[in-house]
């Protein structure tokens, strides 16, 4: 009985949210109700792989374009962020040199990086990757750095007593000890990358969930905007959960 209730409660929450949505749609004539949203956008969901035009495609296909772009930008971000984090972790000197710069760059919005990317690369696709990489690497840098600093003195003593070489110390002690922290960083970085993708697609008009959202807003088809919003949320949630699982496995060691 209690289990059933536990499973019911999230459904009740969703129901209440739908009710609020419906109530808002009654007040605001431009906002489609949940039912109208479904009727007007079901073709995207029911034919998820259909390709009718540049932005007029099935929702899975659109999400796929966005995910590929996110994956590229995210991998670029952590490929830069992880070594930088290790460097910051082991060298107080380097940290002191770059910390102020990092603190200033960290709060800059993706919307601000994107035009710079466009100037640098002249094309929208690399500019989007640039914005994703720059915005998403901070949590990886910071968590990797914290992870290296959190290595207990005991492990450093083991390295000294066994006279491990720097390479062995890195592979057998520093890396495994830092791995759970790194993955916390990766999870946060992926979350940010997903936030950035929507913004950058909106600004550059490239096909994807964000591009679709902006296109449909300009075409005054508001139901499709809601579909895009829900899709963005669900995918972001699934990504976070997957990274969370990977992280939990590492912490279990």
């Amino acid at each position, binding site marked *: 009985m209690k289990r059933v209730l536990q499973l019911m409660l999230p459904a009740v929450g969703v129901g209440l949210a739908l009710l609020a949505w419906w109530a808002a749609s009654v007040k605001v004539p431009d906002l489609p109700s949940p039912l109208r949203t479904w009727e007007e956008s079901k073709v995207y969901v029911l034919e998820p792989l259909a390709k009718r035009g540049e932005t007029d495609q099935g929702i899975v296909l659109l999400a796929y374009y966005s995910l590929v772009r996110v994956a590229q930008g995210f991998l670029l971000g952590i490929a830069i962020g992880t070594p930088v984090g290790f460097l910051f972790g082991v060298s107080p000197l380097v940290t002191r040199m770059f910390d102020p710069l990092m603190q200033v760059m960290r709060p800059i919005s993706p919307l601000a990086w994107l035009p710079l990317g466009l100037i640098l690369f002249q094309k929208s696709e690399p500019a989007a990757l640039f914005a994703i990489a720059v915005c998403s690497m901070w949590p990886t840098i910071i968590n990797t750095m914290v992870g290296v600093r959190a290595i207990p003195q005991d492990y450093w003593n*083991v390295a*000294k*007593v066994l006279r491990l070489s720097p390479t062995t110390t890195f592979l057998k*002690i520093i890396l495994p000890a830092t791995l759970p922290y790194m993955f916390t960083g990766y999870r946060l970085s992926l979350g940010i990358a997903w936030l950035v993708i929507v913004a950058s697609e909106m600004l550059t008009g490239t096909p994807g969930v964000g591009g679709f959202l902006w296109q449909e807003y300009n075409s005054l088809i508001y139901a499709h905007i809601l579909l895009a919003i829900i899709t963005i949320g669900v995918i972001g949630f699934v990504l976070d959960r997957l990274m969370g699982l990977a992280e939990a496995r590492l912490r279990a060691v």
Partner: protein
Amino acid sequence: MAYIDVSGVSKSFPPRHVLRNVSLSVERGGFVSIVGAMGSGKTTLLGILAGLVPADSGAVLVGGEPVREVRHDTAFVFQNYSLLPWFSALENVRLAIAAALPDTARPAQVDMARLALEQVGLGNAVDRRPGQLSGGMRQRVAIARAFATKPQILFLDEPFGALDALTRETLQQDLMRLCSAADRPVTTVMVTNSVDEAILLSDQIVPMLGGAPATLGRPIEVPLPRPRSTTQLAYDENAAQVRAHVIATLTEAIGGRTRRAPGTRVETRGAIALAAEKSP
């Protein structure tokens, strides 16, 4: 000159002055225990002897050479085991062997590690990770790791401090067996807060006196034949004398301190509790 020769070593972790003018000599193949209350600087001293921590002043010589970093023929057993939790017991031991004998082929390293674990009775648990082992078993792995590389010098930092009395006793027996079975003399320096443990294992006991800064008292010989056992020592006249001598030295130092500095109450209580706990 003695094999390990420490003269005039001082160490501060500002603002704390931990060690003052410490001198110690250990003969080759000898087993010396440094006994003192918790927090008196024993671990720091051991770290200095091993080359883990640099001294502020004074000299540490092993075989006539100054110690600057951890020597290749030195092994260390830490109080909190210090095993790497992401590796199996076997891999923890193999890592030490691989570092000491990099030219040995990997299968041979694995065999050596397995043998070292069998010698401490862990032949069945080689694939388990430290998290799946009890405290006693973990310390066995740590001891196996220390002996696996056939060290000349062994440093033990409260090796059994975190174990229950029964486990502690079997591990002490194992340690005595390993020390005497080694085909060449192992020179051992152990730090402990247990007077009985020191009597059981050592040739000499050096009391650590005071604290902040601490210094070493005069060495006390342990003239008891080997092999020794805890039960036998409990009724032995000579053992009782040594015990009384060590405890008297430790408490006397505290008495002197209290007369001079009435502000050291907490330390006094701690050390007397230590002495009372260990007296029969």
